[in-house]
């Protein structure tokens, strides 16, 4: 089979893995080598679905011995199959990299013969890149559930990032849809990677040249909407992963119907829900929120209409408005419409002067949503006065829906009908 043909089949099979970030590595180029890491990551292109393309994302092979129901590569599915050789992938990566198409490689694979054999193939590929081509660009490899500890340890020393996908947010769902993967098979390698990273950091503190183990950290992915877990269950799980596994990122992937199992939905991917989960995830990681604050037993789902931060603020109107000149940084971060960068700008500038609304405008702080929640110099913005039943419709009429800092991708998908439902409390 031609390489181009393999590339088509095996990138098609890999596209549902959403992680494509190249951040967290500051690997330097070496003499006679090629490539370097960029701490913040670099997007090289954007595909027609608006996702960042940063890495050559491919499977080593899609001949899978397993039969996970939510996956296109399951052995019972009738789909085109192909396998690369280690050298083919290494050569393709280098040629793409030299043309600046990509930031590096994201290598994953279906389980070919058994998890160990598969992992050995990944290692071979990456060894060619690192040792023969002296490639110092970004490499993200998937740890295959069930692979032996030694192999995972070996792989971890070659790559920048590793991931083990949780895939389904509860053990029950895993059991029903991916019976060959046990919870242990997923959590054990995760734990091992976490420990490896911690040890490696300690060693680095002592010996400057100690080898680095997964220096850009580990990530994982959950499929959203294939099974019945609530937003609350998902966000709680994410919080646990960030805290207990020191996860760098948890990715959420709206389930695209590829399975025929009657337990799985056949409807369009729940993109808005995925978007809300990302927003909530951001709140956990950068805004000091906890999962418990965002959702409760009574209210286990995010709103279709307003973003999670707005939702939280509207439920806590007693805390607002806050004085932009006096409130602590942590509180400014919680104002809807004010992102991390603007919050920092505000606390820096107010050291030297009393900020007015005019000042905020000059600093390009968007007032669209923030104006309902802040005062400056004792005044509210245009004498707006704070009552929930007034704010909610106003926020909506100004299309203050979705998105803070991140681009609001799905505004246009919230239909008029959804809005009305929300206002009458039916949703």
């Amino acid at each position, binding site marked *: 089979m031609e390489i181009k043909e393999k590339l088509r089949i095996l990138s098609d099979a890999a596209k549902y893995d959403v992680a494509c970030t190249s951040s967290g590595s500051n690997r330097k180029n070496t003499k006679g080598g090629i490539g370097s890491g960029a701490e913040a990551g*670099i997007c090289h292109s954007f*595909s027609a679905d*608006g996702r960042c393309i940063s890495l050559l994302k491919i499977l080593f092979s899609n001949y899978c011995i397993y039969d996970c129901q939510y996956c296109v590569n399951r052995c019972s599915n009738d789909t085109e199959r192909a396998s690369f050789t280690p050298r083919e992938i290494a050569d393709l990566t280098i040629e793409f990299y030299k043309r600046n198409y990509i930031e590096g490689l994201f290598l994953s694979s279906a389980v070919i013969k058994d998890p160990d054999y598969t992992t050995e193939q990944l290692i071979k590929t990456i060894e060619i890149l690192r040792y023969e081509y002296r490639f110092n660009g970004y490499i993200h490899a998937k740890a295959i559930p069930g692979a032996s500890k030694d192999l995972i340890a070996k792989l971890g020393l070659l790559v920048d990032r590793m991931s083990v996908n949780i895939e389904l947010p509860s053990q029950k769902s895993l059991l029903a849809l991916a019976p060959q993967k046990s919870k242990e098979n997923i959590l054990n390698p995760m734990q091992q990677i976490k420990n490896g990273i911690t040890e490696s950091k300690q060693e680095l503190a002592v010996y400057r040249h100690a080898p680095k183990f997964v220096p850009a950290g580990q990530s994982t992915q959950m499929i959203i909407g294939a099974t019945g877990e609530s937003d609350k269950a998902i966000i709680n799980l994410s919080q646990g992963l960030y805290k207990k596994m020191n996860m760098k990122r948890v990715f959420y992937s709206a389930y695209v119907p590829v399975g025929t199992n009657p337990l799985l939905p056949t409807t369009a991917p729940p993109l808005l829900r995925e978007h809300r989960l990302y927003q909530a995830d951001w709140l956990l990681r950068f805004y000091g929120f906890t999962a418990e604050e965002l959702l409760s037993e009574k209210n286990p789902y995010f709103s279709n209409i307003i973003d999670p931060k707005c939702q939280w603020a509207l439920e806590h109107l007693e805390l607002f408005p806050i004085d932009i000149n006096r409130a602590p940084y942590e509180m400014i971060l919680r104002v809807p419409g004010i992102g991390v960068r603007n919050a920092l700008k505000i606390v820096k500038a107010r050291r030297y002067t009393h900020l007015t609304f005019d000042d905020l405008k000059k600093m*390009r702080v968007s007032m669209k949503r923030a104006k309902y929640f802040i005062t400056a110099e004792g005044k509210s913005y245009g004498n707006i006065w704070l009552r929930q039943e007034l704010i909610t419709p106003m926020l909506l009429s100004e299309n203050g829906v979705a998105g803070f800092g991140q681009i609001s991708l799905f505004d246009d998908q919230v239909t008029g009908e959804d809005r009305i439902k929300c206002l009458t409390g039916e949703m």
Partner: protein
Amino acid sequence: MLNRRDVIYTYDGSFEGLMSAIFDCYYSHDYPYDICNEGNMQTVLLCDYIGTSADREKAGRVMNSIFAKISSEAFYHIYCAYLSETKGREMKIFDFLHTGYKFGASVTNRMNLDSVWRLINTAKTVASEAHLYRGFIRFKKLENGIYYSEIEPKGRVLPLISHHFCERFSSMPFMIHDLNHAECLVYNGNSVEIRETDSVPLLKYAEDEQAFQEMWREFYNTITIKERRNEKCRMSLLPKRYWRCMTEFN
């Protein structure tokens, strides 16, 4: 103390020239009405013109004073604003410097001051364009082994991306040709320079070049999840004006 006067200082368009002109302003205690590139000047009635010339020593003294009395961050903003090629950037730089000498390093935090946010916002547009180009540049391999790329940026981004590419491809000769500003970054595997050019060389591609371009397009198209198509989102993240120079859209 500087006196506001209806004078216009002119300089040769180079960064060194601009720094020298600023030196002359301070030396004569002038807060000028404008500082203009002598290449594209429009005569303003009722204004005196003072010509200046680029002078390494004068420019060096201004630059040193920025590092010493303000901060290296401030210098970076000034340099980026200069590279923006936007109208009126010279006076934005002058205003910012004037504020900077008054407040020192804290000036970059005072985003509520007009002279500060105007300059920093100008600088940021260039810096972020440069950041995008780190990803969006596409090299094509020529017959002679050189990797060649064309770009059409709004600002003059070459000085800002030079280090990134030279480090990354330290043993690969490459050229990045800025068609809009007729300059070309040339790296021969050892040393780097930015040359003025107004012609596009005759390009002969390497034999296997076409094959890799096709594979990249194949990959680019396959990786899209059709059920999630979102043109609006792609357009805002990757605006059309970059497409012409990108392999995936050719």
